[in-house]
Structure formats: structure tokens, C-alpha cells
């Protein structure tokens, strides 16, 4: 194990790993033992300021996924993610900055899944986010525009590239309690909001050539200092667009002792978001596929009785494995059943 690989892995793990220290004594406290700020239920999100980074929090991400279609009807998916993690709260000059950034980008087709990964130091300008006008970047990967509702999104690896124009058709949606999203019974929480209603249009560059595409994109914004309870092993996260114009975000925090912690937000065709009580959304794995020597559920049954939702969610490409320094499954899905549509599925913690 080399020095820098160790450091990259440790940095990536800091984002996802269960760490008991994070979970203790959150309530009412402004910071944890190491001085990181903690999400607070009384905090009210302010825009555009909260589109920018929160360096006092341990982790943060700007997460874009899009379901796209080519001229011949082929389905594609893309992912663009910028992560920020702080080794220590706050900022410092140049190389001394404790802020570390990394980016993941991917293009998924029914046959292939291409991805790339970037790392950057904070403090030198190699990566960062500015709230207004909106600009988020790492190396040449970039998401920028006059506002977060009107952005251009670019990324490239050595075998793929994409450039998409995203136009939001609806408002931002705050999850949980005005954007305070609880993740466990112990109270782990994050600040969490989404822009679920982007229309996307642009060009994918694949090994076979360029493809003009259009479709729908989804932005997730989340920051926290305490992502998982130590009883939680990973999560399954769904973002779905239905053909009737509605949408849904739902996630299941898998727990070692009992049923997953299930959270969902229903988004009406007019863009109004309604957080649903914990445990209302139900999920059942239907099929697994062997991905990188592990069994991963690539088809699910989702039920949301209050909305008469009973659908089967299936991976477009079961091998949508992000073999990055911290690896996970992330790819486009199709939705069949009571509601039809497309969406994205993210699954972490499958060992």
C-alpha cells in the first residue's frame, strides 16, 4: 500500500465510513469533538449561499445524475459528482488547506459503464464551488452557469466525455424537516436538498463516437459531519422521474439490527415536495447480479401505499460499478408497474 493511495483511501472513507465518534451527543451541540460543525434542525437553508461549500462540515457533495435518450431511443445515464471532505474544519492557505476534493464521473449505456475519478487539494484553486454565479469544478470537470437552475455540465475521462445543458423546470425540493434530513434512530442527520426537475440536452462522447442526447437530470446537495450510525452498513438510494410528471426520492439505510431506516420525499408534477414519514416506503430486492465478486440487487420492488405506488425498478446495466478508490454501484434504472419512468439507483456498502 503506497503512501498516497493510503491517503486517498482514507480521505474517501472519511466520507462514507461508519464512525462511532460521529454519532455521539449530536443534539443541541454546534460541533463534534474534533471541532466539525453539526447539522441542526433549526438551521434554515439560504440560497444561493448554501449552494456553496460549508468547510466547517466534514463532508459535502454536489451530485448530478441524468437519464438520457439518444436519437435511436437508446437509454443512457451520466453521473457527475463533486465531493468535498475536510481533514480538519475550516480553511488554510494553499497546500496547507485541510479541504480535499474529489470527483467521480460516469457514462452508462446498456452495454458499458465508463467512469473516471479525480483528486484535488483545496486552497490552490484546483477544485472548488462558488455559489453565485454558480460554479463547481475539479480540474476541467465543471458545472457552471448564472444560477444553479441554468448550468452547463462537463466531464471527461480517457475514453468518454460529455457536455450537457441543464435547465430547471421547477423549484428546489427540501428533504426531511425543511432540509434537515434524519438518517437514523440515533439522530444522524444531514442538510439535504435536491433540484429534481432539470431538462438535460447535450452531447455524449463515447468510444464509438458522439451521440446527441436529451432527458432529465437530478441534483442532490447534501452536507454533514456524521453520515452513518455505527449500526448502519450502507444505503440504497433511488431518484425516480415518472411519466406523469411526478418524481420521488427515497433511501434505505441498511441496519445490522432490523429493518432499514426508510426515508422518502414525494414530488408532485408542479414541483411541490412532500416528505413522508419514516418507514412508509417499502423496498424488496428481486434479483441480484454478480458485480466485482459480490452479489448486488439490481432489480427492486418499491411500494409507497399512500401514493398507490407499486413498481419494479430495474438496472439499465447491472454492471454499473464505480471502481473508484471508494467503490459503489451507481447507475440508471427503468421503472415499470403502477408508475412508469426512469431514474437512478445508488447502492453502497455491499461487500
Amino acid at each position, binding site marked *: 500500500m503506497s*503512501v*498516497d493511495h493510503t491517503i486517498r*483511501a482514507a480521505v474517501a472513507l472519511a466520507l462514507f465510513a461508519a464512525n462511532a465518534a460521529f454519532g455521539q451527543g449530536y443534539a443541541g451541540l454546534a460541533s463534534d469533538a474534533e471541532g466539525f460543525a453539526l447539522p441542526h434542525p433549526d438551521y434554515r437553508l439560504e440560497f444561493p449561499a448554501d449552494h456553496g461549500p460549508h468547510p466547517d462540515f466534514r463532508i459535502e457533495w454536489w451530485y448530478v445524475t441524468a437519464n438520457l435518450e439518444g436519437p435511436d431511443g437508446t437509454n443512457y445515464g451520466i453521473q457527475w459528482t463533486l465531493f468535498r471532505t475536510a481533514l480538519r474544519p475550516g480553511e488554510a492557505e*494553499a*497546500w496547507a488547506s*485541510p479541504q*480535499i476534493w474529489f470527483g467521480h464521473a460516469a457514462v452508462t449505456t446498456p452495454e458499458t459503464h465508463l467512469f473516471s475519478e479525480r483528486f484535488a*487539494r483545496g486552497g490552490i484553486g484546483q477544485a472548488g464551488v462558488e455559489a453565485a454565479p454558480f460554479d463547481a*469544478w475539479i480540474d476541467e470537470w465543471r458545472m457552471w452557469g448564472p444560477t444553479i437552475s441554468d448550468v452547463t455540465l462537463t466531464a*471527461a475521462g480517457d475514453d468518454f466525455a460529455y457536455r450537457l445543458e441543464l435547465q430547471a423546470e421547477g423549484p428546489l425540493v427540501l428533504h426531511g424537516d425543511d432540509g434537515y434530513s434524519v438518517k437514523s434512530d440515533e439522530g444522524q442527520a444531514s442538510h439535504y436538498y435536491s433540484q429534481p426537475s432539470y431538462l438535460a440536452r447535450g452531447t455524449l462522447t463515447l468510444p464509438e463516437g458522439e451521440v446527441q442526447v436529451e432527458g432529465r437530470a437530478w441534483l442532490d446537495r447534501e452536507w454533514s459531519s456524521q453520515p452513518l450510525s455505527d449500526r448502519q452498513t450502507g444505503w440504497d438510494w433511488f431518484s425516480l422521474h415518472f411519466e406523469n410528471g411526478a418524481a420521488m426520492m427515497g433511501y434505505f439505510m441498511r441496519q445490522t439490527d432490523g429493518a432499514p431506516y426508510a426515508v422518502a420525499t414525494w414530488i408532485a408534477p408542479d414541483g411541490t415536495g412532500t416528505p413522508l414519514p419514516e418507514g412508509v416506503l417499502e423496498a424488496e430486492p428481486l434479483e441480484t447480479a454478480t458485480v466485482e465478486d459480490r452479489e448486488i440487487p439490481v432489480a427492486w420492488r418499491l411500494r409507497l401505499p399512500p401514493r398507490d405506488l407499486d413498481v419494479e425498478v430495474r438496472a439499465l446495466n447491472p454492471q454499473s460499478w464505480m471502481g473508484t478508490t471508494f467503490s459503489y454501484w451507481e447507475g440508471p434504472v427503468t421503472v415499470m408497474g403502477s408508475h412508469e419512468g426512469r431514474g437512478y439507483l445508488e447502492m453502497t456498502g455491499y461487500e
Partner: protein
Amino acid sequence: MKAAGLTAILSHWRRHPVQLATLILGLSLATALWSGVQAINAEARASYDAAARAIGGDGLPSLHQARGAAIPLDTYVALRRAGWLVTPVVEGTLRMTGGEVRLLGVDLLTAPPPALEGDLAGDVEPIDALGESGRLFAAPEIAARLASPDLPPVVAVEGVAPGLALADIGVAQRVLGEARIDRLLVLPDQPLGRPPLSEIAPDLEERAPDRQGGVARLTDSFHLNLTAFGLLSFVVGLFIVNGAVGLAFEQRRPTFRTLRALGLTARSLVTLLAVELLILSLAAGAIGMGLGGLIAAALLPDVAATLRGLYGATIEGSLTLRPAWWAAGIAIAVLGTAVAASGALWKVARLPALAPAQPRAWALASARTRRLQGAAAALLALAAVVLAVAGSGLVAGFLMLGALLLAAALLLPLWLAACLAGGQRLARGALAEWFWADTRQQLPGLSLALMSLLLALAANIGVGTMVDSFRLTFTGWLDQRLASELYVTARDDDEAARLVPWLEARADAVLPIARTDQRVAGAPAEIYGVADHPTYRDNWPLLAAEPEVWDAVAAGNAVLVNEQLARREGLRPGDPLDLPDGWRTRVGGIYSDYGNPAAQVLIGLDELYDRFPDYRRGDYGVRIAPERAEALRTALVDDFSLSPDQIVDQAALKRLSLDIFERTFAVTAALNVLTLTVAGFAILTSLLTLATLRLPQLAPVWALGLTRRHLAALELTRALVLAALTFSAAVPVGLMLAWVLLSVINVEAFGWSLPMHVFPADWARLALLSLLAAGVAGLWPARRLATRPPADLVKVFAHER
């Protein structure tokens, strides 16, 4: 039958333990020298590889600022943001107890992973490696020596090259006190749609991978040198084996004949003998490998010092013996034995079953053999001449050397025969005539041993001449080159601004030593600015120059180049020379620059200031009356509060340089002595062999009334005469060798030639040494003869044999 045959054959060694010892010792010595040298070379190569791996960027192209200046952080970020996946590197030097290490700062997040064996997981938190405290990573043997309160904590990691400390770039910049980036490595697998470099950073130039070959190429000549020595020793060792095997086979002729008469086929006999040799060579090979390991371990520290001093290449001071080394060593012992014994085996194979069991001098050379040797020598000499004229490169140089030495060795019997024939003509009296005639008769049996003595002596004279010429030239050159009494380094521009007036008030002159690293004629080069001062005009070691060259340099009309650059580019005074930034100037002169592998250009100080504003500053030579130098040094420390390590005095610098020099050739000297020892041993074996065979020739002389003691004295004299004659041949051969080493090998290996000086006093010493070796080697057989029971001599007449 075969088992019985093998027992019969092997029983010989039980009866002749000394002969067995000779054979084993000869082969062991040969294997030892060869494998010792190989072990040293392998160790050095492994160290170079480790150094290259530790950087992780081995084999990657890199981006550099034109004129060697630092790369701004903004440029790095602009490149990354344009899709150029590059990673920054800063380099510097750290002092530690008993030496220095290179500090390499890399961005731990974007650098290619270095291939380290050590495991850091769990030991170092990312915030510690990257953050304000920072960590240095170094090999365990360096880590303790490096630790210092002024530095970040040092973490020991297996596999970091010795002489190297790794750190995050931010940490390294803080330790070095300079926020600079020296180069950007271009990572493999670049993203699609990357714009050309000229659109992003037109100031940067992309350079081909700076392979570890850099060091390996530089040190090639040194390793080739060692290899040549090892090979020479091995060849000399094989002469011993050849002698010992020849003797053993000759003495067993009756046994062979009897075995054949009893029905053992010639094929079985040869097989049995081959098995015997295989066993012996495996045993001797194993002993030799053990000895070789010891030799390597003993010499390695000197080799390490040499490589560091001469090339800046760091190798580990400890030895790791690799499996491949063992295999190669044993294989070469077996192969060597096979080569050395093939002649003897061939004869056994063709031995008629009913051949008389009469031992004869087994290599009675006919006139034909001698003609063949002469022809071969002529061919080899011709090959050497062709190589000298047409060949180029280090390998050609060594091949030429080999051809010359072999030719000389082959000519030796001719020379000795001629001398002995001369002696015989001059001889008066029966005894004297017999002495010369008998010596001639022995010549074929001794010629191989004498050839090895010749080679050893020639190598001694040649290498000795080279080293002494080098030393003489080098010391003279040091006196010229290090003319300033004190060398002072300012920590920063601020200190320099105060230091210069302070010094000017107290010293005779303050000479700025300003330099910049550039590329000249497509290769890295140092450009120095020189002040217009008598220090340079009077002392600088110019090899060739135009008249009034210093005026031209001071006026910016000409530059001086070092011999390495001049030879590489074929430059002479008056030739045009292109320097960076389109500056076309003229070569005004060429100076000698020993010990520097790189090209160097001297320009006027003002030119340097104007054309290369980013030059490295802060170093000054101080001229002052030598007796006042110490006082000034003290004042610099006490009054100006310069730290003592910022001042180097001339004497210390010279001492250091000479020390490096001496250590460089310590290895050579040690190998020289070993080779001579092996050659002395070869003579001993040959004389012992002959002593037994020559009884039939001596017995009649004894019967005619010469005492055994007298005979023994004559035998000893004979050995001395032959050694003296061989030495007489070794002097010209050695001088030729020295000439090739100085004028061909040196130029190829280092880029400089040296004037040759001769040292007759050394020859006298060596002549005595060779007589001593021959005397000691001849003493034992002579003594055996003197104390031989007369009955043995009488038997010669009684027996059929």
C-alpha cells in the same frame, strides 16, 4: 564398473590433497572475484531502480519552465483546469547526520503511486501527512539519522530509496522555505478533449521521460570497469584451473590406461571425469560464492562512496545477495571449469588404450603452436587497431582493451623464447647452456602461468599509471579551480545584500558564484557567470583558448565551455554556440572540469544577470590572504552571525574532493592486489606441476654431479629469470593499457581526457613484487627438489619411465 572407475579416479585426490586444494582454491578465487564484482553491480543497479521507483514518476514525461525557473502555482492549476493531468514535484536537499538526502515533495493526492514495500495504513493520518505538522517518509536506515527538531516527524517506510526523503509538496515547500514547483509530471491516461500545451502554458516545455537511465548511464562506465576487472581475475583463475586439471590428468595417465585396459569405454571414462569435474566445480563454486560475498561486502562501502561522490548516485551500503546471483556464479564456475578442462578431456577421449604410461610435458609446444599464437596475436592486434579507429563508445573501448591484452599475452611466449635463445647464445659453459636450454624446454608448461602474470602486472601498471596521472592532474586542477580562500552562502537575498558589503570591507575581493540550470545542445547544462577578476584570469584551467579570451568573456562576446561539452559537441575555440533564448555566441575557450558529468558553460557575470534573471544567487567566493582566512571565518560566524555550515574553506573543500577521489580508486587498488595474488598462485601451480614431470630431465644432471641443492637453486633462479622477463614485457603493455584507459576509456566514460604521467619508481616496486611472487612460488618446488630422496632420482634410471 563405473562406480569402481569413479572411485579409482577420485582416489587420486586423496593421495594429492595439495593438488586438490590448488584446484579448488584457484577456481574459488576466480569465482569469488567475479561474483563479488557482480554482487556489487547488482546491488548498485537495484538501488538505482529503487530510487527511480520511489519517485513514482519514472518513465513519465515532464513539463519544465523554460530556463529552469520555478513553475508558478497558477500555471499548475491552469493546466489541471484545462484537462492536463499533471502533478507537481519540488526537490531539495536536507542535511542529516553524516550526509545529505534528497527531499522530494509530491502532491500525495495526484502523484502516481510510488511502488513502496512498506505499509503505512493505520500509521499516518492524512491530516498528519498533508497538514501543518507534516511528515517525511524515509527508508528505516535513514529515518533515525534524518530526525531533527527542525524537521517534521520522520516516518520509516520500507522501500523508499536510500538517500531520499518523500513528503507532501506543501510540507516539502515549508521545509525548503520556498513555495516553488520544479517540474510537473504528465500522468498517463489523459482525458479526451485536452487542448495543446501552447494554449495553456506557452512558457512550459515538455521533456521526454527522465528515466532512471540517467544515473544508470552515467555509472555504466564505472560498473563496466568493475566487470572488466572481475573478468580479468576470472580468466587468470581459469589459468590456474587449467594447470591443475592438466597436472591431475597427466599424473593419472597410468590409471586411465589401466581402466581402459580393464574394459571401461573411452566414453564412460570421459563421462566419469566430467562428473568428477562437475563435483569439484560445484564445491569450488560454492566456496567462491561465499568468498565473493565477503569481497563484495568489504568493497561495497567504498563503491557506494565513489558512486555518490562521482555521480551523485546513492546506493545502499548493505548487501543483498540475490538468487540469480548465486545461480549465475555457480554456473560460471562450472562453465569455466569446462572450458579450462576441455583440452585435457579431449586428450583423454583420444587416449589409445595401450598408450605408454609415460608422462611427458603435456604441452610440448611445437614451432607450429608458436606460429599459430603469433598469428592469433597479430589478428587481435589488428582488431584492436580497427576498434580504435572505427569503434566508438565505452564497450568498443573495453573490447579494444581486451584485444590488446590478449594479443600481448599470446605474444609473451614468443618474446620469452627469443630472450631465452639470446641467453643461450651468450651462455658459456655446459651448465649455463643447459640452464638456458632447459628453461626454454619448460617454457610451454609455464607459458599460461606467465601469461596470467603478464596480465596482472600490465593491469597493475596500467591502472596505477592512470590513477596516479589522474591524481596529479586532479590536485593541480583543484588548486586552479578552488582559488578562493572561503566559499560563503547567503540564506536569502536579504542576507546577501548585507553580506556582500560586509565582506567587501574586509576581504580582497568578493566573487559572486551565480548559476542557472539550462539546456544547451539538447542536454541539461549548468551556466555560470564569472566575475572579471584575476582569480579566474590567472588560475582557470584552460585547455585551449583564443587570445584575450577573458576580455571577450567579460564583454559578453564569447563564452567558455567545459571539456565534456566540447567533446560531446565537437567544439573548438572560435566555433559558434547556441545558448537558450536564441543567444548565439562564440566558444572562446575550453577548460577541464573533472568529476562533473554534466555540460557547463561560463559566461560573463553581467550577461548572466541580463539574460537569466532567475539565476541562483547567494554563493560567493572570497579572496583574502590565506593567513587571514581563518580570522574572517570566525568573524563571519561571531560578528555577522552566519551559521558555520554556510561557510566552506578551500582546504576543507580540497580535502573533501581528494577524499572522494581516493575512495574512488580504493576499489581499483584492492582488485589490483587480488589479481596479482591470483597470478602468483598460477605460477606456483604451474611450477609444482612441472616439478613432478621434470624429474626425468633433472635426474641425468644430478647423476652428472650437480647437488640437489644446486639444482634447486637453479630452479629458483629460473623462476626469477622468467618473472623478470615477463615483467620487462609487462611495462610496455601496461603503459599501452594506461594510454587506452586515459585517452579512450576516460573520454568515453567521463568526457574528459587526462595527460599521462609515468612513474618509474612504481614500476621498480612492482618489479620487486613480481620477483617476490615468483620467488615465493618457486621456493616450495625448489625446496621439495632439494630435499627429495636421491632414491627418487635414481628410480628414473631404474624404471621404464
